[in-house]
């Protein structure tokens, strides 16, 4: 088994270990574990101490359900209980750390109720959280 991975896989690994960094935080972390001369590969020996520290410090904690709900509510000031497909696309691709086209399509496929063409975010969150556990 090789003890090296490509740098783009670091995000998957870190996130599946329970952390929830933003893209920016992720890039900082990668910079910490990269080689001095970036080869595109990360070595396990370098990764382990950094990651251990991250876990011990409980950095990048996951987002609790209620905070997530409030975030959606910020985007829905009229308190309708849903976001239209266009609104979701606009926010996700233009604000924050924008989604790629692929990410956007993937989210839409699961989140959008085809009849109303909107996302009922409360239900959506509940569904996602159940599925995780």
């Amino acid at each position, binding site marked *: 088994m*090789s003890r090296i991975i490509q740098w783009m896989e670091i995000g998957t690994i870190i996130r*599946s270990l329970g*952390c929830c960094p933003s*893209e920016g935080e992720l890039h900082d972390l990668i910079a910490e574990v990269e080689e001095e001369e970036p080869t595109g590969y990360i070595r396990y020996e370098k990764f382990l101490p950094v990651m251990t520290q991250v876990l011990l410090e409980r950095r990048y904690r*996951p987002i609790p359900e209620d905070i997530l709900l409030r975030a*959606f509510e910020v985007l829905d*000031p009229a308190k309708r209980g849903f976001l239209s497909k266009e609104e979701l696309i606009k926010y996700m691709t233009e604000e924050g750390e*924008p989604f790629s086209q692929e990410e956007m399509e993937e*989210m839409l496929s699961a989140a959008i109720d085809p009849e109303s063409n909107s996302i009922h975010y409360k239900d959506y969150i509940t569904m996602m959280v159940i599925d995780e556990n």
Partner: protein
Amino acid sequence: MGSGTSTQHHFAFQNAEKAFKAAALIQRWYRRYMARLEMRRRCTWSIFQSIEYAGQQDQVKLHDFFSYLMDHFTPSSHNERDFLSRMFTEERLPQDSEMEGCRDYDCIEVPDSYMGPRLSFPLLPDHATALLEAFRLKQLHARYVLNLLHETRKYLVQLPNINRVSTCYSEEITVCGDLHGQLDDLIFIFYKNGLPSPERAYVFNGDFVDRGKDSLEILMVLFAFMLVYPKEFHLNRGNHEDHMVNLRYGFTKEVMHKYKTHGKKILKVLQDVFCWLPLATLVDEKVLILHGGVSDKTDLELLSKLDRHKIVSAMRCKTRKENEKQAEKGKANQTGSAGKPSPWFLPQSHSLPSSPLRLGSHKAHKDSRSSSVPCSIPPNPQELSRQVRRSVDLELERCRQQAGFPVIKEKKEEPLLFSSEADSEAGELLQPTQEEWRQVVDILWSDPMAQEGCKANTVRGGGCYFGPNVTEQLLQKYNLQFLIRSHECKPEGYEFCHSRKVLTIFSASNYYEVGSNRGAYVKLGPALTPHIVQYQANKATHMLTMRQRISRVEESALRALRGKLFAHSSDLLGEFKKHDKDKTGLITLSDWAAAVESVLHLGLPWRMLRPQLVNSSTDNMLEYKSWLEDLAKEQLSHENIQSSLLETLYRNRSNLETIFRIIDSDHSGFISLDEFRQTWKLFSSHMKIDITDDCICDLARSIDFNKDGHIDINEFLEAFRLVEQSCSEGNASECPQATNANSGYSRPDAH
């Protein structure tokens, strides 16, 4: 007014900031969710792949088992000798003249009621297309199958080992990878990319058969198009174009099931056709296409020159050393003629000449197994004399053995019953050298790896792992641009590695399970730049979200994994106990992970999988006995794991099936009780399985439902499959057969 605007601006700014932050939060959360999904997908993938490769490894172990037996086993009774001889007689490669002679498909009548395609040769493009259409609903008549196979063989014989293709004749060239019997994928490729034509060249890179249910149909279509467009349509041999592998992975079964009368003949011809498939294709002298990979010893010149027909199977290599040929020649010349020609010397016989004793042990319905099958066309005198000499040697050797003389062994131990021993100059033509065999196996079985170097492919049991430097070395040596290979399933249907110098292309979508992976093919454009096209031949999966797709495949993988765990229950219990010195009945979860890996050797991330496999654990401790019991309850809904025999058989069922099929050389589907017992005895002693003879006898007898002294292989193995199925579908009605296989349940009509 002014202050109002600035307040508005202030609010607006705050709102914008809030929206930005909210969006960022949602994205952060979502990306983590997707990452965990990706991790589950990869775990699932590892499970499938490691189980698949462990199976292939088993196959090689089986080969080692045979080698071990051949070298060390001294049969202690006449029965055992016969039994062994049948297992080990190399299926003789029919000589060219014989194959030509066996055009007896002409005698096969096609009834008027047959509504399938009727072929005539030389084939026309319409015929090939008609086949494709017809296969959705009908089966091609055996006569046409044999006819097509014979024409295919005739054509393949005059092809070189490495096909050289030029893109100046056809505008585009499409390369497809493994199809593994999945006709839907082939149809889809032709639909999406277009049918083969003088303007549209195709290369199919091996592994057309096994696992999927339409292997034979795929072969028919591919061979038909190859005959119709010989300059544009090319096939490479894969590691599954090998009759030994087919015994295990389903193709043999498929043929016998679809063609009950002529299946055996079809398989015989197929075995030969496979050996004549070219080993590689070279496009514009720049892109090398072969099935598995390369090694640091790969020598394209040697590969071009060897007689590829001699490499019958990667699983059996009894090779000759130059110095032995002399010794055997000498031996052969010493023998007198201990017998005279009689019908059983004829080409079709691929078991030893029958003796009165052996004939007695055969039952009526096994007539086809006996070796006296008269050929419709008598062999020429030269042929006959060669066969006489061969059989004489065999007969002499048997007499010697019966008389109790020690088996004569030269420098290297070789079984006396092997046809290669008895043949003198005929034999040497039929066997490859060690080097030749190795070169071909490397081409068909190797996988690329990330690290530099070249090491043995222990996972597959054949070929090697080759690193980027090996690729580079080869490309430079032969002035090539890149390699295209297949052999490994990839989630996206393709994968580049070694700095894009190696492209893996895999064309069987949903290979492990519906939704497990896409298929892909690659088109080589001008300047040979690769252009990949992906697909997934199952509309149902398009509707599912990624989450749902992954869940389904994951469930399937976990089920397979639980099956494997159950099959090793006894070993696991032993291993768990080692971690529980104080006999508390509990072990830690990390001990559980370590124990499981040391028993199964699958190299899986057990700690990550643990939540899916272990339901109940308190304080990180696991009650292992009840966990094993729960596992068993799942696997056998009404049986528990008290019968370790059943468990052992279950674990080894693939191996058993393979051995059975080898013994059942006439593919009748039956073996005698005696053979079953002997098989099991040999096998279990080699694998160091501790089972008493009595248990075996009981089991064998209980499986023989109608008490005629024979076991229907398929029914026996079906018992296991049904147990698996019934547990997943909750179908209680099919369970009774499992009872029969297990507890020696005797039916009312038995005594």
